């Protein structure tokens, strides 16, 4: 009874005491499934055109009006240097909230489609192997397997860390192992 209650409380909180455990929202990008912490997700909305910002990296599509707030939108395909595809009916913007330099920022991520919500425990999450591509490794929290499917769990705060983005543009990044 109490265990069930605990479980419920965890479900409500969407988080457990485990380091990487918790609920993840997954989305599709070029056939792969990526997961982000569900607590970071504010909402999911359909794609609508944005106002482009001059002189910004190409993966920043522009800004959109989210009920009065100006929110930058990032194309995840471009972010990962995947081929661009035409936006279709399943294309959605996942609006995430992240903390950066003690400021809460809201950012929209354009993905091919949203997939599912999974509940993972610490033991499900394997550290990402060294893939030789330094840029991506920094943003990957780990890999998880659910029903024989591999999911890539992303470290969302770093993914949209604008300083990292700028650094990347300026120079080749150093290799870092994030799954420690």
């Amino acid at each position, binding site marked *: 009874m109490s265990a069930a209650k605990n479980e419920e409380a965890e479900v409500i909180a969407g988080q457990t005491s485990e380091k990487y455990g918790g609920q993840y929202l997954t989305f599709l990008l070029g056939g792969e499934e990526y997961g982000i912490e569900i607590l970071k997700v504010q909402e999911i909305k359909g794609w609508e055109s944005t106002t482009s910002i001059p*002189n910004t990296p190409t993966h920043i599509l522009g800004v959109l009006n989210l009920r009065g707030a100006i929110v930058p939108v990032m194309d995840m395909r471009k972010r990962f240097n995947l081929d661009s595809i035409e936006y279709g009916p399943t294309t959605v913007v996942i609006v995430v909230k992240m903390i950066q330099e003690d400021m809460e920022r809201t950012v929209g991520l354009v993905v091919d489609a949203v997939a599912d919500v999974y509940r993972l425990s610490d033991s499900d999450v394997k550290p990402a192997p060294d893939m030789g591509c330094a840029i991506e490794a920094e943003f990957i929290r780990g890999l998880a397997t659910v029903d024989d499917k591999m999911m890539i769990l992303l470290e969302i705060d770093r993914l949209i860390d604008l300083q990292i983005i700028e650094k990347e543009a300026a120079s080749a990044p150093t290799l870092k192992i994030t799954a420690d």
Partner: protein
Amino acid sequence: MFESCNDPLRMFRELQTFGDLEVHAAGHEVLDFETFNPEECLLEWQLTLSAEVDREQVSEVFAWVEDECKLTIEPILGESTAAVSTAPEVAKPTVDAVVEDAPVEVAKPPAAKAKAKAKAKSASGNKDGGSIRVNIDKVDALINLVGELVITQSMLSRYETDFDESMLDGLREGLSQLSRNTREMQESVMAIRLLPISSAFNRFPRLVRDTSSKLGKKIELRLVGEHTELDKTVLEKIGDPLVHLVRNSLDHGFESPEERKAAGKPEAGVLELNARHEGGNIVIEVIDDGAGINHERVLEKARTSGIIAPDAELTPSQINDLIFAAGFSTATEVSDLSGRGVGMDVVRRNIGDLGGEVFVQSEPGVGSTFTIRLPLTLAILDGQLVRVGSEAYIVPLVSIVETVQVGSEDVNAVVGRTEMFKQRDEYLPIIRLHEIFSIGCDSTAIGDGLLVVAEANGQRVGVFVDDLLEQQQVVIKSLEANYRQIPGISGATILGDGTVALILDLPGLIKLYYDQNRNLDHDATRGRAVWAASA
């Protein structure tokens, strides 16, 4: 305090019941017998109570008067016989109520409260709150406007129930009245937040006198435009940067009287603080007639401290700009005024946080001028929508001088690249928005589009756009809240159809234009940009 039938003596007696009480009284001001009001308390006391009491017990004694006086209670911990649980506490209330007239009395309690608030702030790291004192006339004007708004609303609501075409004119009139009311009310609400800058200037005569006598310099302070009004939040935050700039001028800018004499200048230097409105901005200048910025010394310091590359070549204005670099200081020894290398970069950052900018002009031997440019209000501006390709941008209406169409024969390309056109007796550079923002446009031919002649930082430029759209008031939204600052863009707004439009920042745009040109120059001549210090 006496007006509310409170007697300090009784409170002191009550305090005495806790233990030994020492009382020091101090007369606060010389009394003028004509205006003396016997019900005002003009004294302040310092009480030292040696007893084991709780803070609550002490503050309870002052419960009735804490709003009418400045009261501070500080515990003094005993050194040796710190006995059981209650530490000895000492109350040091300074009870004063210097009251000249009624309105000030009203203001007194907030002052006391603000003190408490400041304490709470430091404890919990709260966000900026604060209160504002508003002239009753401004509030009355606002109430009048609200009354008018209610009338307009009731007039418009008549059309809600049965409407036919014959009433169209009436509806139109009502709507135009509504828009007028809205605009007036908006101005009125903005005016509530505006305060004269004199409150920030007031501290300078003393500061300049004290500092200059300490430095052994003769300096005359001139304040100009003290009645210029600006937003309260801006006013509060501009104080510290201004103090820093003034100190900087006093310490680094002015020479000693002997040096001045030798240079053929009057012994007393003149420091001018000048505030004025310029379009939608407020411009504050700190002008000194001192020695100006010593370029060799600045360059040398910047090189040795690694702020710029040793082989970097800088234009004079870039050298001047170096004093805003973090960690930069030319002072040879650290004094209580300067030399710590912390300062001008903080000034620039603080002003940047307010959406403004600071820059310096300096001529060796003649003096320096620090110019701070700040937005007047932080919320709304009149904008002109312009179109470039499929994008719409907003140009602040205040900076637009005129819009002209020129033919390609009126345009000359200086050194093959910088386009200039002649407007009356002036040659103005053309900034092509599509080039500077790397976006698409209808046509690159100068005759097909329009030139918006705009002024910023005292400089005129022609901004090349495809078309003019409508004018409208826009609410400024921050891009930095969720993203970051974009060069040439001061913010964003939401248009009537819900889409986002970006607001052009003309000073930033001009800077961007010159930077791009400069980079092109360097690319062409040296193959790389040598301007190494971060802008």
